[in-house]
Structures are given as C-alpha cells and as structure tokens.
C-alpha cells in the first residue's frame, strides 16, 4: 500500500511536469508560422509591380529644347490637363494646411518650430528650394521634382544652362540641355529620392529634424526598415502614402492622417497610411497578449524601439549662444558623428543616435503654437504637442522624438519671434545683430515686435513612425512593465502591472509575513528548548 501510494505520487508529478514542459515548448514549435497580421499584409501588397501604358521618352512634346522650367511644365500639362488644378490644392503647393481656413497653419502661414523658427517670407532660397515650384509660387509647378526618375538639381541646372548660353559656351550649354531633356523624359511615380530630397533633409541637413527619416532610407536593409528594406519588401514611400488627386495621405499639422481606424478588409479605399490598414487590429498570433494592447498602444510604440538608428538626429538647439565670433569671424565646432556642436550663426546643438522615444497619448493631432499665439515663458513652450488622452477611444500611446530648444521670444508681447536669418538678404547670419533680425523678421510676417527679446525653453515633437524594426528587436514587455526606468514612466494616470504597486499594501503584506516568520521562529525555539528541558527532567 505504501509503495503504491509513493508510485502514484511519482507518476503524477512526472505527468504534471511533462504537461508543463509541453505547454511551454508549444509556442516555439509554431514560431515559423506567420502571424495573422503578416499574412493579411502580404495579401494586401501582392502584385506590387507597377505597369503603365505610357513611355514618356516617346512623346514628341518632350522632344525639344527647354529654355526654362516653365516650358517643361507646359509640356506636361498639355496631356495631364487636370494636374495643375489638382496640385494647387495640395499642401505641397500651398504650404498651408488645407484644413485651416485662416491660413495660419503651414510653412507659408504662421507655423513655427524650434529649429530655424519661421520659414514664411524669410527670403531664404536654401530654405524654400523644397517648394514644388520653379520659383516660389510664381513660375508654375515643377512636376519633375516628384516625377523625374533622374536625380537632378533642376533650378541649378537651368541657372547653369542660361549662364553658359550667355557666355557663348554652346558646348557645355548643350550638354546641360541634354541632361535636362533626359530628366524630362524619364518619368514615373515618385521614388524614394524624389520624396527624400526634401523630407530626408528637413531642418537643413540629413536627419536634423526627423529621427526616423534620412537618406539611409534610399537603400536601407530590412534591419533598418522592414517595409522599405531593399532585401525585403522594398516599398517606396507611396506604397503607404497612398495618393488621390495628387493629395498624398499623411498627417497635416493638427489634422490626423486618418480619423477612423480601418483595415483594407473593412474598406478597400482607405489610405494605407496606418499600420492597421494592412496588418489589421489583431495582427499577432492568437492569444498573444499584444493583441490586447492594440486598443491603447500604437504599433510603433513596440515596433520602433529606437529612432535615429542610421544617423544621429538633432535633440537640442540653443539659439542663445549664437553670435560668438573668433577674431571677428563666425566659426563652427564639430563633435561626435561629425555633427556640428556649435555654429556662430545658429548656436549650440546636441545630437543623439539610437534614441529611446518619449511616449504620449496621441489621437493623430498635434496642437501647435504659431507666431500669433501668446506663450507662457515661465515654463517650456510646447510648440507642437501630441493631443489625446487615455479616455479618448481614438488615442493610443505613441512614440515621439522631442526636439528641445532655447528659442527667441518677445519678452513684452510673449510671442515667439520670427527672425530674418539669410545672408543673401542681410539677416542674422551676416549681421549677427539680434535686434535687426527680429525687427525685419517680424515686420515680414506683419507681427509686432516690442524690442525686448529673451530665450525660452521649447519642445517640438515628431511622431516616430518610419524605420519599423524587425520583430526580433521589438520592445520587450519588461521595458514598460517595470518599476524602475519604465519606458512609460511618465504616463501615470493608469495602473500598469509590474510598474505600479500600492506601497502600503506591499509594506503591510511583507510586514505581516515577517511578523509571522518571527513568531514561528520564536515558537520553534521555544519548542526546541522545552523539549530539551523535558528530556532532562525525564
């Protein structure tokens, strides 16, 4: 009987252990199977090869010498009759938010940032060369910036062409003309370079503004970007930034890219701008806890563990130190990653690489401070800030790059200050005269300047959404669900397992357990000595 009982317990514990081991090894056996969200996305992106019935190199209208950019545009519009009207309505042309009737939001409005502060009317050719026209809004749109498959600096080529023609050097002028013609005939959908020539260089240099957009995306590996990796899906920008009537899907200032979370299964005409459009709202394998997170945590929060993974991005710009000269001359200093740490014309910078994002509730809208808004200089000014909160069904926790700065403001009017910077129009970068550049800058946008300036701490946010990393580098549960240095340490309005506890409960609980252990120890000691005494007495 005794033996049988032992045997029974033994067999049972073996069976239990086996069941447990089987359970734990279960998931790994099917690891190679694709998660539902990947299957859906693969299905949604089949037949990626674009085809066309048109070969632009065969068009007679493009087979001529072009004296100016406008002539090329005219040739384009002779067939694409509606393109100009469509394009004139887009923010790429207006530089004004199409969702804002007051013409306040936009680079051509009163929007500002904590980099070069204001773009509007500051007469900087370098800054405005990203506008999709031949000469501001004057000489028509430049279709080639987005559609030519040749990487050509169009305005410079035409300037050179005219220069050599005037000099009488017809040979060089002819070569340039051939280059221009080749570029005008090699036409297609926008490629990565077309978009990237502006968007990879925001803020006047590669990766200055965006931590998740830089020229490394022209030929990235899948380890940098699972969607654009040339060894993988090889997506172009427009694969997700789907376009209708020249309007390209994406967030515009305070306006979300989409207001309703829908996958292509629910509506095949939604823009593919959200992860969910292709991957659905439950993309992980069945019963994976991550599927329970998608209502409150954006995909990007876990799948983009760091930004600036290819190039260092600017994290801090302090204007207040600008203007120092050495031997009466402006100078610059360089630091890590060969990035400038000081420029007389701009001030002090810090850069960082492989940066952990900051997390905020985000419903797709950013609230912004424009040059017209009154600020409170006693605390950091959020020039742009994510909007949303936990109770809003459309808000999720989203990763951001926060660019911080020390930025000029008007101490009397409490507004941010636009400054004229460009050398070519005698701005700060030539004169190093603060007062003069503020006076000129504010006059240009028709805003008052009191004459007293100071510097205020500013924050400017960038949603981190590009450079989605491979799944094996995904943010692990414990990086958020932990008491110390949780990624979500700043989002305190809810209880999160592993991060939060009730101090009184933990303290009280452990105290009672300690007391019980103490009592037991005393009791045991008492029994031990009482036993000895009893034996002696016996």
């Amino acid at each position: 009987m005794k033996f049988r009982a032992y045997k029974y317990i033994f067999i049972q514990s073996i069976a239990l252990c086996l069941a447990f081991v089987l359970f734990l090894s279960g998931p790994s056996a099917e690891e190679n199977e694709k998660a539902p969200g990947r299957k859906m996305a693969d299905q949604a992106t089949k037949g990626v090869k674009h085809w066309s019935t048109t070969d632009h190199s065969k068009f007679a209208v493009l087979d001529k010498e072009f004296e100016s950019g406008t002539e090329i545009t005219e040739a384009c519009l002779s067939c694409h009759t509606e393109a100009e009207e469509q394009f004139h309505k887009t923010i790429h042309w207006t530089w004004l938010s199409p969702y804002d009737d007051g013409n306040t939001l936009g680079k051509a409005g009163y929007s500002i940032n904590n980099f070069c502060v204001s773009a509007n009317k500051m007469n900087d050719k370098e800054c405005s060369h990203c506008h999709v026209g031949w000469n501001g809004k004057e000489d028509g749109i430049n279709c080639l910036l987005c559609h030519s498959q040749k990487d050509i600096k169009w305005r410079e080529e035409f300037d050179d062409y005219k220069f050599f023609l005037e000099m009488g050097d017809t040979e060089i002028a002819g070569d340039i003309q051939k280059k221009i013609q080749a570029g005008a005939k090699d036409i297609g959908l926008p490629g990565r370079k077309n978009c990237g020539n502006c968007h990879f260089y925001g803020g006047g240099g590669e990766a200055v503004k965006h931590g998740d957009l830089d020229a490394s995306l022209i030929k990235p590996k899948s380890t940098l970007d699972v969607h654009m990796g040339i060894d993988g899906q090889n997506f172009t920008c427009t694969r997700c930034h789907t376009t209708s009537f020249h309007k390209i899907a994406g967030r515009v200032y305070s306006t979300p890219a989409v207001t309703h979370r829908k996958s292509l299964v629910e509506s095949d005409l939604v823009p593919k701008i959200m992860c969910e459009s292709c991957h659905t709202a439950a993309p992980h394998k069945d019963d994976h806890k991550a599927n329970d997170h998608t209502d409150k945590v954006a995909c990007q929060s876990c799948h983009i563990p760091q930004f600036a993974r290819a190039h260092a991005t600017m994290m801090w710009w302090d204007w207040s130190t600008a203007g120092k000269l050495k031997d009466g001359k402006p100078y610059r200093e360089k630091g890590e990653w060969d990035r400038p740490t000081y420029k007389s014309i701009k001030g002090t910078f810090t850069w960082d690489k492989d940066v952990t994002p900051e997390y905020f509730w985000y419903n797709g809208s950013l609230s912004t401070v424009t040059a017209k808004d009154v600020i409170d200089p006693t605390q950091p000014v959020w020039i742009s800030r994510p909007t949303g909160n936990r109770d809003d069904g459309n808000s999720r926790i989203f990763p951001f790059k926060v660019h911080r700065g020390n930025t000029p403001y008007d101490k009397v009017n409490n507004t941010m200050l636009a400054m004229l910077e460009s050398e070519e129009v005698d701005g700060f970068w030539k004169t190093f005269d603060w007062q003069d550049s503020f006076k000129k800058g504010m006059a240009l946008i028709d805003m008052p300047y009191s004459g007293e300036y100071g510097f205020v701490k500013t924050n400017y946010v960038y949603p981190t959404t590009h450079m989605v990393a491979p799944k094996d580098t995904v943010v692990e549960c414990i990086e958020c669900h932990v008491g110390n240095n949780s990624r979500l340490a700043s989002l305190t309005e809810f209880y999160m397992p592993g991060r939060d506890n009730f101090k009184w409960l933990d303290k009280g609980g452990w105290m009672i357990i300690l007391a019980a252990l103490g009592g037991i120890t005393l009791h045991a000691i008492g029994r031990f000595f009482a036993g000895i005494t009893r034996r002696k007495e016996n």
Partner: protein
Amino acid sequence: MTKKMNKIYIYTRYERSWHWLQVVLIAILLVTGLEVHGSFCLMGFEQAVIVHNFVGITWLIAFTFFIFWLFTTGEWKQYIPTTKKILSVARYYGYGIFKGEPHPVPKRKDAKHNPLQRLAYLGVAALLLPSQMITGVLYWTYNSWAEWGLDFLTLGMVAMAHTAIAFGILIFVVIHIYMTTTGHTIFAHTKGMITGWEEIEEGTFIAEWEQKTK
C-alpha cells in the same frame, strides 16, 4: 514518550494528489505573481505572465474537481466551523505544546481537522482561494470588461485586491508549513499527507461531535 502509535488511514488518494498538485500550483502562482507584481526578476515579466495565466486557469479547473469531490463524498462536513474546544486548541499551541501535552483534538478519519484547522481551511478554501480566482479571472479578462458592462472597475482596484489576497495566501502558506512540524516528529504530518497514514497515539479518544456524521 514511549506510547504505542497506531497508524490510521486519513487522506484518500485523491485528497493527497489534490493537496500536492495545489502545492505546486500555488507555489508557481505565488512566484510568478510576485514577479509580475515587480517584487523580483526571475524568469522575465513576459514568461512570468504566460506561466501565471496558464497555471491560474489550470488551478481553476482543478478546483472545480475539488469542489465536486468535496460535495459528492460529504467531506465538506469536515469544514463546518465550530467553537467547541477552540480555546483548548489555542491553549495547546500557545502553552501545552511546550509542556509535551497531548493534542486536545487528535486526528481521525472522520475528524481530520481540529477546530482551528476547520476555521482556517474554511476561510482559505471558501473565501481566500475563490476570491483570488475571481479577481484573477477578472484581471485576465481585462479587455472584455467594457463588453460585459464591467467598466466601472479599474485595473488598479482588481490588482489591489488580487495582490492583497495573494499576501493572505502567502501568510497562510508560511504558517501552514510551520504547523506541519508540530506532530510527534517534525515530518510526521508531511509523511501523513504523502502516504495517507497518520500515526496516532493509542487509546486516544475522539469525541462524537468531532466525527463526520454519516
């Protein structure tokens, strides 16, 4: 101290396997639960959650078998609380045990729990464990609360209750393990729970009221 010991069969095979299965389950649940709570780092948060959920559900299912057993065998009657002799049992553990006195309420097949045990086990089996299972299931089904009209709850409330009860169970475990050493030898009760046979001093009288009425 040389009284003759009689062996009596007290714990049935199911009872013993259930007891030790529950030992394993509660041990795993306490360890993984405290890890999820952030008390220490052992297997990693993610693994701890997976194991905790699996073992929790296993426990829930096994517990329904226990309840079935309890009522079909009538063993539930052994959990009926009583105040009879409770003071003398308390006096025994607080005083008599040091003097080598015999236990005032010895074990028998039909009376396996003394009055203090009846109270403690009833509290554990009828209150502590079920409420831990209920709060655990609630915790586990957090994402369905809105659907079920339970959105007046917050995760913090449920987590607080679940943690508090876990401490209660841990306190029970600590005392329970110590109490097993109070038999005539240190491992006598442990042995009894493994083999089913307890050794009782010969001639011990067990009162009528103590016996499970057939």
